């Protein structure tokens, strides 16, 4: 379990961190600080920064059996050997038994899910089935350093909340849980948070999928974790959900972890503040760029196998809209319509009758991890699905790699297409 150091030179450790490395704070902390030191040294971190909040990304598909085994190995240590030093939540949401029996028959995902939840719970990680950018977990404060895992959460917090975080992916956030600190590099440093590239929108996006496309275009253009785009708008300021879709797509298409929207996000009251006083060239994005992106994926007129509304998971407001679009209608028999929501949101929707309207139309409200993160390739093979529609530009990117032919479209177009059984223009 203990990490090996590969370097001839290492980042600076204080006395507590040296004691952790020497095993004086337990085996889990010894593994964790060694792992963090290796990563921190790789990125030339000078030292560590203390953190209070951690988010551990733990979807069952990406963890694999070895990830579960690793967490169980940590859990098998005596409590004194695995003392936590931060408050951690995990986004493991379990599996929606009924819907996952339909999506992936023959595989007992409920048992696999329970195994992960129990292993994380034994360590003291709170498995609360939520993401900060789903607006179901308390966010850290402005300027606060934290150790969050999910890329959507990290870009959301750096950009929209103004907290400070690098991508602390699965095992990395688990390490932060045991050490109460993260290496100080990247977006913990003032100098790395200034905009490196400027963009201007000369149109006003019509809906959240347009905002996602803007994020995808910027992500593709910059294509580096270390780039920070700043964006100037000509239209009205976006909603938080619109910003969230743009953020998800930037992170997905370009590994971007921070952006500014001038006069909207907290570290960008103006161009000077966003760019740290530097003068940036500003590239204009117009609607032709967005139209070209949509045309790239095509699919209009194709028979439609599945519509997945997910990534991020649906809010109550969106589910109200979906229920209104489906009320009195029927999803075409060749098409499966999946609407993903956190468990708590699904329960709230059932209480006010929305779930019943949606299910009466033949659609499914699914709780648990997102479509793309729950064996989407295996689901495609099980159902022989091909054409997918979604309002999530991030999901388009991922599912193309899983063998789907995805079409991005607004929620309204997705629902209408599901009713007609084919991709409408």
């Amino acid at each position, binding site marked *: 379990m203990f990490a090996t150091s590969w370097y001839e030179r290492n980042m600076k450790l204080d006395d507590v961190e040296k004691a952790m490395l020497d095993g004086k704070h337990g085996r889990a902390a010894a593994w964790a600080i060694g792992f963090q030191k290796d990563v921190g040294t*790789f990125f030339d971190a000078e030292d560590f920064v203390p953190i209070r909040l951690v988010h551990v990304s733990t979807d069952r598909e990406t963890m694999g059996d070895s990830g579960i085994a690793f967490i169980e190995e940590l859990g098998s240590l005596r409590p004194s050997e695995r003392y936590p030093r931060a408050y951690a939540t995990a986004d493991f949401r379990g599996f929606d038994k009924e819907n996952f029996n339909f999506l992936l028959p023959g595989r007992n995902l409920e048992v696999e899910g329970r195994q992960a939840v129990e292993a994380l719970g034994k360590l003291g990680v709170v498995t609360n089935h939520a993401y900060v950018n789903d607006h179901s977990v308390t966010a850290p404060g402005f300027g606060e350093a934290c150790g969050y895992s999910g890329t959507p959460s990290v870009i959301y917090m750096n950009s929209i909340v103004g907290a400070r975080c690098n991508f602390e992916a699965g095992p990395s956030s688990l390490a932060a849980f045991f050490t109460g600190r993260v290496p100080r590099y990247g977006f913990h440093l003032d100098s790395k948070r200034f905009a490196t590239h400027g963009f201007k929108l000369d149109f006003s996006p019509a809906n959240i999928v347009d905002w996602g496309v803007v994020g995808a275009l910027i992500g593709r253009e910059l294509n580096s974790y270390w780039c920070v785009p700043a964006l100037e708008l000509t239209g009205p300021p976006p909603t938080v959900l619109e910003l969230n879709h743009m953020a998800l797509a930037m992170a997905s298409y370009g590994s971007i972890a921070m952006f500014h929207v001038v006069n909207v996000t907290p570290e960008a009251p103006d161009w000077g503040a966003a760019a740290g006083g530097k003068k940036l060239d500003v590239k204009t994005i117009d609607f032709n760029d967005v139209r070209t992106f949509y045309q790239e994926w095509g699919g209009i007129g194709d028979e439609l196998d599945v519509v997945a509304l997910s990534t991020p998971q649906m809010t109550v407001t969106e589910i109200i809209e979906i229920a209104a679009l489906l009320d009195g209608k029927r999803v075409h028999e060749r098409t499966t319509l999946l609407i993903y929501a956190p468990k708590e949101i699904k329960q709230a929707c059932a209480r006010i009758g929305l779930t019943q309207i949606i299910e009466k139309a033949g659609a499914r409200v699914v709780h648990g991890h997102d479509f793309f993160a729950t064996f989407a390739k295996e689901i495609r093979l099980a159902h022989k699905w091909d054409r997918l529609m979604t309002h999530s530009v991030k999901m388009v990117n991922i599912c193309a*790699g899983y063998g789907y032919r995805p079409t991005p479209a607004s929620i309204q177009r997705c629902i209408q297409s599901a009713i007609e059984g084919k991709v409408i223009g």
Partner: protein
Amino acid sequence: MSLLEIKGHSGIGPTVHGIALSAPDDFSTRYDLDRDRGIFSRPSHKLYGEEFVGRILVLNAAKGGVASAWMLREMVKKEKAPLGLLLNDGNPVMAQGAAFAQMPFMDRFDVDITSAISTGDEIEIVPARGIVRILSRIKTKD
């Protein structure tokens, strides 16, 4: 005796040598790979259909989300992993994944690594010293 020595930033993992699989495209374990079959599965990727197991991947930038941090180790455990990874532009997820999997990984080279190394070249990676050596070429680069 190497034909060429390339400098990069100090990396992660042990020294290895093997055969390169190179393309100017970006890389994510989730977005680009069929991890069960050990092939590139994204149709638009230049390495689509290529087997990656036991090869040293030479690609441009790390892309996408958190998945690679868990997945690289799972791939190693299932013996469905590349031997090493060289990127022009890494990100924390890939570094964390490599450290967790103890997979050799380097980035930030003084040249475009995807232009310098071709598929089929025999190379050695020395992450601790930030060095990649080309031991033999399958063909001469222009």
